[in-house]
């Protein structure tokens, strides 16, 4: 077995301590890494060997849990999925854009969590039936209709990529609206009308200008941009039915 190649990695990490700081500032670390490592490995090495006060979130190290999202050289990335070999020179690591910084690389996800709840991201059965009547069945084609959108891991990279969310923080945003779309498309679900009260508002889908950045950065290939354009079309058809077709309001 050939030995792993070592490399001295320079990291520039944004630091913020809520107990002592009023501003965030960059701190430079130099740490010996294996060429095959990811940025998260480098941060772990820094924390273990150089600076135990460095704060960041991570859990699974395999792009599934969605907790290690950071801006790496200005790009929203899962740090467990950002390979050192893709970067040259100093690697700049910052907390996810558009979210308040709790401490160092840890951001406050409260706003996203609140918005996710508002779109009712769960199946609201069309007709409730007792368990004795069995499961709600679904064909493979019905599953495929929304499957892609159910891959979201709530990592919030799309919010960090979306300039409209940065400019208008009231925006419900890509992931939450995509979840609404995912359940709207589910053959077992009857909750679309309830979700439209949030989706079809200005803060809902109509703040989106189709920048498309959300889909480009999504580590789970969910395509929120596509979901939002589809929501615009269905919301527009709703509007026509409600306002222009006699008796359509009911």
């Amino acid at each position, binding site marked *: 077995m050939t030995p792993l190649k070592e490399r001295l990695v320079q990291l520039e990490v944004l630091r913020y301590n809520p107990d002592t700081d009023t501003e965030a500032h960059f701190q430079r670390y130099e740490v010996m890494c294996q060429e095959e490592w990811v940025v998260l490995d480098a941060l772990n090495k820094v924390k273990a060997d150089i600076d135990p006060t460095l704060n960041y979130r991570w859990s699974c190290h395999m792009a599934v849990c969605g907790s290690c999202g950071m801006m790496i050289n200005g790009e929203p990335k899962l740090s467990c999925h950002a390979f050192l070999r893709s970067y040259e020179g100093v690697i700049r690591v910052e907390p996810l854009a558009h979210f308040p910084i709790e401490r160092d690389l840890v951001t406050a996800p409260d706003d996203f969590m609140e918005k996710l709840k508002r779109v009712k991201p769960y199946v609201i059965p069309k007709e409730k039936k007792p368990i004795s009547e069995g499961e709600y069945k679904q064909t493979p084609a019905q599953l495929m209709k929304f499957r892609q959108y159910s891959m979201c891991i709530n990592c919030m990279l799309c919010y960090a990529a979306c300039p409209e969310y940065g400019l208008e923080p009231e925006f419900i945003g890509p992931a939450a609206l995509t979840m609404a779309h995912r359940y709207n498309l589910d053959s077992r679900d009857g909750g679309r009308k309830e979700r439209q*009260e949030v989706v079809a508002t*200005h803060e*809902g889908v*109509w703040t989106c200008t189709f920048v498309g950045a959300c889909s480009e950065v999504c580590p789970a290939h969910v395509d929120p941009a596509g979901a939002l354009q589809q929501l*615009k079309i269905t919301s*527009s058809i709703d509007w026509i039915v409600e306002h222009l077709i006699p008796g359509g309001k009911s």
Partner: protein
Amino acid sequence: MAKSHKPVVWFPFAAGGTVIAFFIPVIVLLTLMTALGHVPAGLGYERMHAFAASGLGKLIIFGVVALSLWSSAHRLRCTCFDFGLRADTLVATVLYVAAIVGSLASAIFLLRI
């Protein structure tokens, strides 16, 4: 939170965006050829006038001009916001009114032909 009336402006924007994509490049190409001295036969007065005088011709010309104007106005409104201009209501009013005036003018000119 009330449901938005944005579909009123968005639907014609989407229709106009499609019209621009399909029609405007080739129309610009035709006038650019004219400008460079290769006047296509169809752009002579007789044929253009005959086309604009027909009912179908009027409909096509009006549809292309009105929807393209609206789509451009709506996109420009969003662009102004993106550039940091926060007076959205004013910007929207000015641009939408301009698009409507342009469309009405086209209709009047077409009816005179």
